[in-house]
């Protein structure tokens, strides 16, 4: 299989967007999914449990040094940056906020691009700032495939528009078409 990881960045409107996107993935989905969702620092992890119940695929908060496995969706813990090491494990950091955010989408995307190169899919969804735009550009530069939520269908269009403005993206699609595409790409060689 061509793709070894999918990274998703999402901000305001994100929980609703993920509730549309993730339940469409089957339990056997062969590409690990790694998500940065901007949330208030004290949001707790109830929403992850809730999302996990609504999905076939397993969803959990990413742990430091954890090995990235298929059949899993990993969420960056609140108030930590999530990075990917070259041995395909996670690192966490409490370094300064990037784009006013911790976790920052750019931080995840940049380290993922360097680890997975052309075997990576990067996705930017709804959000009110420009985090993720630089990271998505980097994914493209490293030969990865990029997808942005169609801004006209996003709850907040600023983040998708910023990503599209910064570099050419491969697909601009509404949420339900993104999950269809991911299922197609899963088996691409």
């Amino acid at each position, binding site marked *: 299989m061509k793709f070894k990881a999918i990274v998703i960045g999402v901000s305001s409107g994100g929980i609703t967007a993920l509730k549309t996107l993730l339940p469409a993935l089957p339990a056997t989905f062969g590409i690990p999914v790694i998500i940065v969702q901007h949330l208030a620092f*004290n949001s707790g992890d109830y929403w992850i449990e809730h999302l996990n119940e609504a999905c076939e695929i397993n969803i959990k908060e990413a*742990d*430091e*040094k954890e090995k990235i496995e298929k059949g899993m969706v990993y969420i960056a*813990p609140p*108030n*930590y940056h999530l*990075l*990917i*090491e*070259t041995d395909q494990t996670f*690192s*966490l*950091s*409490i*370094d*300064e906020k990037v784009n006013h955010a911790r976790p920052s989408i750019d*931080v995840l995307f*940049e*380290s993922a691009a*360097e680890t997975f*190169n*052309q075997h990576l899919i990067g996705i930017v969804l709804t959000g009110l700032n420009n985090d993720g735009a630089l990271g998505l550009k980097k994914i493209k*530069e*490293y*030969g990865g495939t990029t997808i942005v939520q169609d801004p006209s269908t996003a709850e907040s269009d600023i983040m998708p528009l910023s990503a599209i403005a910064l570099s050419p993206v491969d697909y601009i699609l509404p949420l339900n078409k993104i999950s269809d595409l991911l299922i197609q790409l899963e088996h691409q060689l």
Partner: protein
Amino acid sequence: MNKITTIKTEEREIRSLLDALYQNYGYDFRQYSEAHIKRRIRNRMTLSGLESISAVQQKAEQDKTFTSLLLQDLSITVTEMFRDSNFFKALREKVIPILKTYSFIKIWHAGCSTGEEAYSMAILLKEEGLFDRTTIYATDFNQHALDRAKEGFFSNSLIKDYTRNYQSAAGKESFSNYYTADHKMAIMNQALRDKIVWANHNLVTDSVFAEVNLILCRNVLIYFNKELQNKVHRLFFDSLGNGGILCLGAKESLRFCDVSGEYTEFEKKQKIYKKKY
């Protein structure tokens, strides 16, 4: 592909730079998480207008001021007062009652950086009536961070966040009782500043310096690789008395260390462990 070759070269250059920093200055970042180190070195590279990691190394060899900046970049961790208020609440409600049974208490804050959490601890002890019978050792290997910690200044713009954290951590007074502020800066009260013993100690290369009742080391170990984490956990184990308390960061655990069986999970969710008798 071009980009991918660049990355391989860069990784080699980073290893060479870290070797040089260790050989020439004794600071050992070779067992730190790579993705994190790479990010910090690249930030310095961009800030200083340098083109490559090897240019960073060259400059570090010629320019002492630059090396000092680079070492700061690699070693400072960002912290705040009462970070994770639920943790401090658990400390107050569950751990303080144990400490109250001791006639004299020693606390080690390992990797204290600029001191915000050590001050939070001092405030907590004051409110719980343990201030006078406690010694707090706050250590870091970054002398610049320690000097700042000792001065006890923080920016006025942080007061709002810190007050909110303090209140959610079940603070008993008004947070403003603990500092004096002008239009720009705030400074911690003299009594709090004098309470803490600030000392230079390197978790990577130094050893046990006292037997303590409680160790606080939060969000430091996440920057280390598994081998180094294991080594530091051994140091903590050897420094704690029986029944001693170990406090880690929200996303840290004893998962990768040989001594994990020697502790009980005292407050699982808040990552507070108790050394077995």
